[in-house]
C-alpha cells in the first residue's frame, strides 16, 4: 500500500499529541513494519518497530496453579483408604492362617509321639501276660 508522506506526517503529529485513534496507530505500525518507509521518519520507525517486537514477547515462566480440588480427589482418598484397610485385613488373615498351620503341625507331631508311646506300651503289656499266667499257676500250686 502506498502512503503519502504528508499523510504520514499528519498521522505522526496526531500520534505525538495523543490524539490519534487506534486505527490510525495501526496504519502507522503497518507502514513502518513494511520496510518501505521514508528516511525522514527513520526515528519513528525505530519506535514502531520496537512496539511491534515488544508485543510479541511471551511469558517465559510456567504457570503453576494449585491442584484442582474436586469430587475426584475425595474419591481418590476414599479408594486409597479402602485399599489400605483391605491390605491390612488380608495381612492379618494371612498371619492367622500361618499360626493355625503351625499349631496343626505341632498337634500332629504330638499325636505321632503319643501313638508311638502307646504302641510300645502295648508291646510291654503283651509280655506282662506271661507274668499273669505265671502267678496264676503259682497260686494253683501253692493252694
Amino acid at each position, binding site marked *: 500500500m502506498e502512503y503519502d508522506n504528508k499523510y504520514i506526517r499528519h498521522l505522526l503529529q496526531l500520534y505525538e499529541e*495523543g490524539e490519534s485513534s*487506534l486505527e490510525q496507530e495501526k496504519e502507522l505500525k503497518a507502514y513502518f513494519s513494511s520496510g518501505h518507509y521514508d528516511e525522514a521518519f527513520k526515528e519513528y520507525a525505530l*519506535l514502531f518497530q*520496537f512496539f511491534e517486537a515488544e508485543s510479541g514477547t511471551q511469558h517465559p515462566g510456567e504457570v503453576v*496453579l494449585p491442584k484442582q480440588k474436586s469430587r475426584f480427589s475425595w474419591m481418590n482418598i476414599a479408594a486409597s483408604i479402602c485399599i489400605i484397610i483391605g491390605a491390612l485385613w488380608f495381612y492379618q488373615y494371612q498371619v492367622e492362617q500361618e499360626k493355625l498351620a503351625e499349631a496343626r503341625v505341632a498337634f500332629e507331631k504330638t499325636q505321632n509321639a503319643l501313638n508311638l508311646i502307646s504302641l510300645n506300651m502295648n508291646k510291654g503289656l503283651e509280655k506282662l501276660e506271661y507274668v499273669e499266667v505265671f502267678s496264676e499257676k503259682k497260686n494253683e500250686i501253692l493252694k
Partner: protein
Amino acid sequence: MASEFYSTEILPLQDKIFRFSRRLLSSETAAKDATQDVLLKLWKLRDQLNEVKNIEAYAMTMTKNKCYDVIKSKHHKTLELVHSNYTNESSSLSSQIEARDEVSLVAKFIEALPEQQRAVIQLRDIEQFSNKEIEDILGMNSTSVRVALSRARKKIMSELKKTADYGIR
C-alpha cells in the same frame, strides 16, 4: 465450567500480564513472580470472573496493583536496591553493547520515563488498549491519559532524535 473459562480466557492473557509487569518493574524475574501471583489470584477468583465485563482490563488492573505493591515494598528494602545497583555496574559492558542496538535504545528511553507514562505507553502502544480502558485500568481521567501519552511519546521521540543527531549508535 469455571476452570475451562480460566484456561480459554485467562491463560492467553499471561503474555500481556508479563509484559505489563516487566514494563512497570523493569526486571524480568520480578515480572515473572508478579505474573505468577496475578494468575494465581485470578485462578482463585475464577468462579466470579464470568461477571466481569472486560476481563483483559480487569487482569491489567490487577497487574498494575500488584506491581505498585511490589514497587512500594521495594523502597523499604534498601539493601536489595544497593545489590541490584552493583550488578548493573558489573555488566556495564553488556549494556553498552545493548545500547548500540537501536531497538533496545527505545526500551532504554521508555525505562527512563515516569511510572505512569510507562504504564500508559505500554497499554496503548504495545497492548493497544483503548483510552477508555486505560482510564479504567489506571484510574485516570481521559485528559490525563491523553496528556501522559503525548508527553511520553514526545519525550521518547526527542531522545531518539537526539541520539540520531549526535550520531551515537
